[in-house]
């Protein structure tokens, strides 16, 4: 069912206008020099970390010399729609929407974690549970993060596709929690037997909320894939605003406030990377699309 919803959403986006109309308030804003930078964030991280959001906003505003407006939405889909329809100037999205809308979007910068612009997807289960690989989770209840998440959905679907399976057939039930932290909660409480989660978020959580992660363990780690990037509409890629934003992001480690934000995000910095960084994700998407649901 969820997969069908994701496909519906894509058709909707290709159709364009109707969703854009629902975000009319943002769309009405003009691109004036003193107009605020509209920066959208997917619920990649701990959505509750308002202090971090405030610090990020503050840093960007100072670094760019203009006000910054942060835009949050519950799902990846909403954020992607805002970006594709250019209702926001830039957005921190997942690699999966980026490759899905490869033609409409351009990279601004890619976060660097543990020295690389790469991360992994984790397949997690309850601590003490007997499962060594994905096949052991057949017939169980599974928690996905978001149908537009690479690490929280696509990686597991691709692995299933290699086995000629789809989530609907492989798992007895599955559901979306719309947040990586929620996947950990769902597995820790037993609501789901297994879960697909962002490896970066999971490692940060294990450090920040050890109690939450105590009841879970990593069953399987995926290969390294492109870290969720900061993207902008392709048409705006060379605009001064985006140049300014890229500069602000890449020079973040040079500034104390920037370092504070990076410390909160547990990131090393941001780098300029080619779109080919996400080819691995693109291959998984193709693989999944070739398998019937």
């Amino acid at each position: 069912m969820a997969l069908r919803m994701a496909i519906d959403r894509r058709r909707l986006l290709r159709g364009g206008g109707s969703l854009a109309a629902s975000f009319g308030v943002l769309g009405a804003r003009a691109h004036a020099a003193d107009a605020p930078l509209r920066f959208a964030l997917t619920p990649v991280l701990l959505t509750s970390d308002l202090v971090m959001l405030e610090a990020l906003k503050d840093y960007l505003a100072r670094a760019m010399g203009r006000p910054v407006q942060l835009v949050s939405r519950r799902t990846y889909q909403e954020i992607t729609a805002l970006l594709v329809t250019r209702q926001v100037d830039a957005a921190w999205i997942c690699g999966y929407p980026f490759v899905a809308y490869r033609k409409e979007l351009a990279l601004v910068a890619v976060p660097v974690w543990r020295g690389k612009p790469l991360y992994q997807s984790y397949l997690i289960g309850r601590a003490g549970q007997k499962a060594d690989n994905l096949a052991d989770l057949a017939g169980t209840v599974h928690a996905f993060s978001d149908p537009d998440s690479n690490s929280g959905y696509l990686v597991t679907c691709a692995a299933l596709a290699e086995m000629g399976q789809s989530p609907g057939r492989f798992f007895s039930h599955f559901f979306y929690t719309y947040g990586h932290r929620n996947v950990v909660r769902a597995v820790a409480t037993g609501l789901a037997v297994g879960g697909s989660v962002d490896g970066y978020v999971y490692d940060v959580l294990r450090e920040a909320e050890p109690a939450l992660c105590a009841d879970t363990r990593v069953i399987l780690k995926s290969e390294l894939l492109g870290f969720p990037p900061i993207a902008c509409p392709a048409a705006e890629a060379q605009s001064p605003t985006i140049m300014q934003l890229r500069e602000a992001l890449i020079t973040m480690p040079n500034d104390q406030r920037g370092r504070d934000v990076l410390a909160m995000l547990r990131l090393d910095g941001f780098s300029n990377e080619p779109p080919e960084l996400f080819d691995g994700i693109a291959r998984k998407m193709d693989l999944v699309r070739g398998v019937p649901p």
Partner: protein
Amino acid sequence: MMLRRLPLTARVPLIVTLFMVAVSVFTSERVLTRLAETQERHIQALADAYVDGLALALVDSIIREDVWQVFDVLDRSREKSGDIRPTETIVAGPDDFVIASSKPLDIPSHVRVPARYVAPIRENGRIAVDENEKKAYLRRDVRYESLRIGSIYAALDIAPLLAERRSVLWVLLLTNALLTIALAGAAWFIMRRMMRPITLLTGYLERSHTGAVTSIPDEIVAQVPRDHRPAFGAYNRLASAVADREALSARLAEEERLASLGRLASGMAHEINNPLGGLFNAIDTLKRHGADRHTRNVTLDLVDRGLKGIRDVVRVALVTYRAERDQRHLSRSDIDDLKRLVAPEASRLGVLLEWQNELTDTVGIPATIVRQILLNLALNACQATPRGSCAAISIAETLVSVVIRVEDRGPGMPASAIAMLIGGGDRPAPIGQGTGLGLWMTNRLVRELGGSISVAAGAEGGTVVTVTLPRRKEREFAHVA
């Protein structure tokens, strides 16, 4: 019934205890029932608030059967619950399959709602309390546009409420027990105080049965509660009346003794008077014919016999009334002396005395008392015997006793007189003349010596009174002497 046999000082506290137990059982039952009702309303209100809040937040998620959203709401609402904590909450679809529960490990999604939730619930929205499991169960149907889209099941932990109920029960039990003990103690104390004058009065009354009737001192009466004073006053009046009566009896006995003494004295005077005339004649004869030797000798002989007779009478009187309680042994001469005392009265009444004294020597019995007994019985027999008849008096000794037998030829002793003579020692002294005071005194004297009296009809009519007096052992007697 056993209760009746208990003394009042125990019975009243027991009744108080039983009453208090009944009262505390009743009040405890009422209090606990009311508490349970209040708590149930409290749980219902809290459960309603909790489930209502959930229902509002969950309508959309239930319609979409969104496992995560339902769980998320349940998980968050659990964190802020108050004193009565929902231990488990289940959200189910219209087919009663679980969408999500607050404890997915126990109650996973996509299974039927467990029977333990479904079974106890009778009515939608009404809590069902299971005291054994210390839980209250509730089911609330969730409706959307009048269509039932699902149900919320909640189990609430009511252990704190049950603990409160238990502690209230303990407080009630303890308070009532202390109150009961205090009241029973107070009842015992009060009853003992109330009963003390009665016990005192009973003691005096019981003592009067075995000994002297003594009145209760005024200072004790003054301490007695007002309610009991009339009873004490009445007792004291009774005691003084009894004392007066005994004093009167003693005086009458003395008077009777004096009266019999008077009769004896007049007899004695008669005895003395008889020879006196002869003596005066003899003196005249001596004055006129004293010169004649023969006459003189005859006359002096006459005077000598007359004076000897007077001397004997006087001696007997002296011996008899010399001392009140002379501990001298009874001897043969004592009985003979007594004959001389009784003889004048017998001759006055025209009664012939048959006197038989079989005593050989002194006997270990106080002489004075025996003489008093014999005197009373002999005088009584003389009075009972008609003129010209015979009264027989005998005294004999055996190895262990002295037996006095007095027989008259009278009409027979009346029953009241017999009773007076042989009745029990506690009989009061008869008051008034001719009521048998002499017999009553005889009875007392015989008892004093440890003897016995029997009364029988004589062979030729009349009455035979037999008194048996035990001889004392010589050593004991020597001590008495």
